[in-house]
Each structure stands twice: as structure tokens, then as C-alpha cells.
């Protein structure tokens, strides 16, 4: 039924060792998936914090553009966004003639761009929700201390919202990790890309996809564990009393 030898024999390919090369000799597989995930989450979070502040603004000229952005990027499939960026943009001569083309011609950059814009939209909404949820007591206390609007944002509202966003954000991170699997559709050899390559080399569907499913599961466990530790540390003050 399932050929264990094939799984063992091909396993190094998922860790960057294609065709008998030593593992980690290329960035194919696990390393590429982790790079795509790490970079897009980092850039996405950097974008999301200011955008969340804009989204909760009372000035509609500030809030509306961000609302539109999150609406568009949360309302369309990530795969479609990736195809628009990868295949769509390259159709325009002015894109190909611009300085940006040096980067956009790389599938790697296109994938990170699409993933970043997508996760930034979701993270913005998560953060904005938590900023709106800030307890009025914290705000009153800050005002009573004589803090101005920006100082209050920087010292009280944002740190508090980021902590409370942790549980929802951990879901977003796990979803994003699974979403990186579509990178293979624009020629990248991430974990799923490698699985497809093994599949079409050996004509065996079960073994490579089961292997890759196992690797994703282990990564999910690791991420969930990390976030649990983070919540224990930074959300301890919200945990139910133990005595």
C-alpha cells in the first residue's frame, strides 16, 4: 500500500537535499517555507500596526482607505492575489521597465509580497478589534496621568492590544503557514512544491503528500506551543486566578 522506503529515501528532498545531495545544500523545501512564512509575517505585522491605528481613527479619510484595503484582501482568495501579482503585473511594459521589475521578476519576491499584503489585512483587523476593546479604565488612568494621545497609544493602548491579540494572531500565523503551500504554483520549491516534484517523478501520490502533511503538522504543533508559552508570559494578568 504505502511504500515506506520511498518516504525514507525521498525525505532529504524536503530538507533541501534533492537527488542525493546533502540536506540543506539548497533552500528547497522546509527552509523556503520557513523563509516565506517568517518574512511575510514580519513585514505584515510591521504594516498592520500603523494600519490598525488608522482603521480606528475617527477621521474617515484616514480610516476608509484602510477599510477598503482589508476588505479587498480579506475578500479575495490568496491564490488569486498571488496570480495577479505574479502573472498579472508582468503583462505591463511599464512594470517591466521600472526599477521594481528587478525584484518582481523573482517568484520569491512575488510570493512574499502577496503573503505580506494578505496577512497584513487580517492582522490589521485583529489589532484594530483589540484596540477598540481596550478597557476604559486603562484609558482613564492614562489620561489621569496626563498622557497625551500619542504617548497613551505608545505606552498603553498598543502594548495592551498586542498582548490581547495573541490568541487570534496565533490562528492567523498557523493559517498563513498552511497558505504558503500555494507558493509551489509559481514555480517555487517550498515543501508542497517539493512534494509535487516527488509525486511527478515517482507517480506515487500518497507518499510525498503524507510526508509533507506530517511536516506541516509538526510545524503547527511547534507554533501552537510557542504561542501558548507567549500567552502564559504576556497574558498572565488576564488568566483566571489559580487560588
Amino acid at each position, binding site marked *: 500500500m504505502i511504500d515506506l522506503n520511498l518516504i525514507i529515501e525521498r525525505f532529504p528532498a524536503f530538507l533541501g537535499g534533492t*537527488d542525493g545531495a546533502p540536506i540543506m545544500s539548497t533552500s528547497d523545501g522546509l527552509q523556503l517555507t520557513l523563509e516565506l512564512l517568517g518574512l511575510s509575517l514580519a513585514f505584515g505585522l510591521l504594516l498592520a500596526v500603523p494600519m490598525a491605528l488608522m482603521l480606528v481613527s475617527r477621521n474617515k479619510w484616514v480610516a476608509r482607505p484602510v477599510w477598503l484595503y482589508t476588505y479587498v484582501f480579506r475578500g479575495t482568495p490568496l491564490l488569486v492575489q498571488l496570480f495577479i501579482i505574479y*502573472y498579472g503585473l*508582468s*503583462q505591463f511594459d511599464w512594470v*517591466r521597465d521600472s526599477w521594481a*521589475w528587478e525584484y518582481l*521578476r*523573482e*517568484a520569491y519576491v512575488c510570493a512574499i509580497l502577496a503573503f505580506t499584503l494578505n496577512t497584513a489585512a487580517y492582522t490589521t483587523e485583529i489589532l484594530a478589534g483589540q484596540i477598540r476593546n481596550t478597557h476604559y479604565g486603562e484609558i482613564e488612568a492614562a489620561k489621569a496621568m496626563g498622557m497625551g494621545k500619542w504617548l497613551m497609544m505608545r505606552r498603553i493602548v498598543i502594548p495592551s492590544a498586542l498582548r490581547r491579540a495573541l490568541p487570534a494572531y496565533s490562528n492567523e500565523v498557523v493559517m498563513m503557514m498552511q497558505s504558503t503551500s500555494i507558493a509551489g*504554483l509559481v*514555480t517555487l*520549491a517550498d515543501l508542497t512544491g517539493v512534494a*509535487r*516534484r516527488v*509525486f*511527478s*517523478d515517482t*507517480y*506515487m*501520490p500518497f507518499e510525498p503528500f503524507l510526508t509533507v502533511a506530517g511536516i506541516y503538522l509538526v510545524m503547527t504543533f511547534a507554533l501552537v506551543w510557542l504561542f501558548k508559552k507567549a500567552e502564559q508570559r504576556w497574558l498572565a494578568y488576564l488568566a483566571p486566578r489559580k487560588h
Partner: protein
Amino acid sequence: MKKPLLALGTLALALSATVSAETLRFATDASYPPFSKQGADGKMTGFDPDIAQALCAVMKAKCEIVPQDFDGIIPALNAKKFDAVIASMNITEERKKAVDFSDKYYNMASRLVAKQGAQINAAWFKGKKIGVLRSSIQEKYARDTFAKQGAQLVSYGKAPESFMDLKAGRVDAAFVDAAVGDTDFVKTPNGKGFALVGPDYNDPKYFGVGSGIAVRKGDKALLARINGALKQIRADGSYDKIQKKYFSFDIYGK
């Protein structure tokens, strides 16, 4: 009292007659013009489906053409999603381990498609990106030769995707069947400034003896019928008629 019963009997007879008209499902590559192409109405056209229809006409069967991405076509055949594959698939030793092949139905060289005037020699490949179809014989050949000369391979699921990236400048060349590169890219407005460059690649060790129709391993009865039908369409001129529709040269080879 008897009459309705009789009518019912005739109806059952008529029904069984329609059922017994056998349907053969042939898979083609979803997008590999001029060999196969999906029309706006969803119908497959091209050299491969036309040959399939001609074979079915000889075999007195109803043909159903199933489009399928090339990289999953052999597993899908073995999973009985269809009965045979006519997808410009080169007959190779490695594939023979997974499927049985008919006699060749054409044999054509592979070529590089690149910017007009590119001088292809061993030194040219250094640092170049070359688009190939995932799990194609071109990919295997390129991995063993071009990659060793310093080229980087980029794998695609469909030929048009590699042409699009060639036009956009993401790859420096695409390595495909000569006729595909010619008809589907070089001769189209998209392929302006590009040409088939370098030599014919037809090393039998990689490229085999031509393209064959694949059936599941051990499906001897169907294979024998397909081979018989192939001989007949070669002899009665219907092969030549289809060939003329798509190519200005003979692609059957020696």
C-alpha cells in the same frame, strides 16, 4: 395486454444497444498547443485529440477527451480516471515501469526557445534560467546536461506558463518540443523577437523513440486495438490529413 409489454421489451433492447456502444476515455494535456488546446466551449482540439478521435472511429468506440495537467497524468491513468493517455508523451524506459505504451504516433526533436540570435554553446548556459515542464523528459535531460553547465532550472506545470515567464524575462529560455515552441509561442504575437535556437535535441537515451499512447500496465487488449487502429490511420491517409491541419512538416519521423 401483450402490446405494452412488447413495447417495453423493445425499449429495453434499444437501451441496451446504446449502453453497449463503448466509450473510451482519452486524456490529453490540458494546454499544449498545437497538440492540445481547450477551446472557449471547453472542447479539446489539437493534434492529440484529433488522433484520438480517428483511432476511436476505427475502433468503433465513442471517444471522450479528458483534459488533465501533464504532471499528474500517469497517476490519474493508474487511478482509472481514464483509459488511455494521448498527451505527446515520449516513450521512455522510466515511464514504461509505470504504464504500457503503444507504437509511436510521432517523433519530434526538442528545442530551446530564446531571444532571437542567442548563440547556444556550452558556455551560454552558465547563470541562465531555463523553463521546463515538471517531470517532462526535457526536464530530465536539462538536469543532466544544462544544469551541469551552470544553468538553473525552473519547473512549470503547463507550457504557456513557461512562455509567459520567458516573455516577461523571468527565464532566459524554455526547453520544449520544437513544434510546441514554434506554434504556441514563436509564431504568436507574444513570441515576437524570440526564436527556436540551438541544435535539435533527440538523444534516444532521454527522448526515447517518440511519443506513444499510454495505457494502464497489463491492459493488453486495449493496447492491441490501439496499435491496430494506428496502423490503419497511417495507411488510409487520415493521419496525414490531421497532420496537415497542424504542421507544415512531417512529424511522424523515421
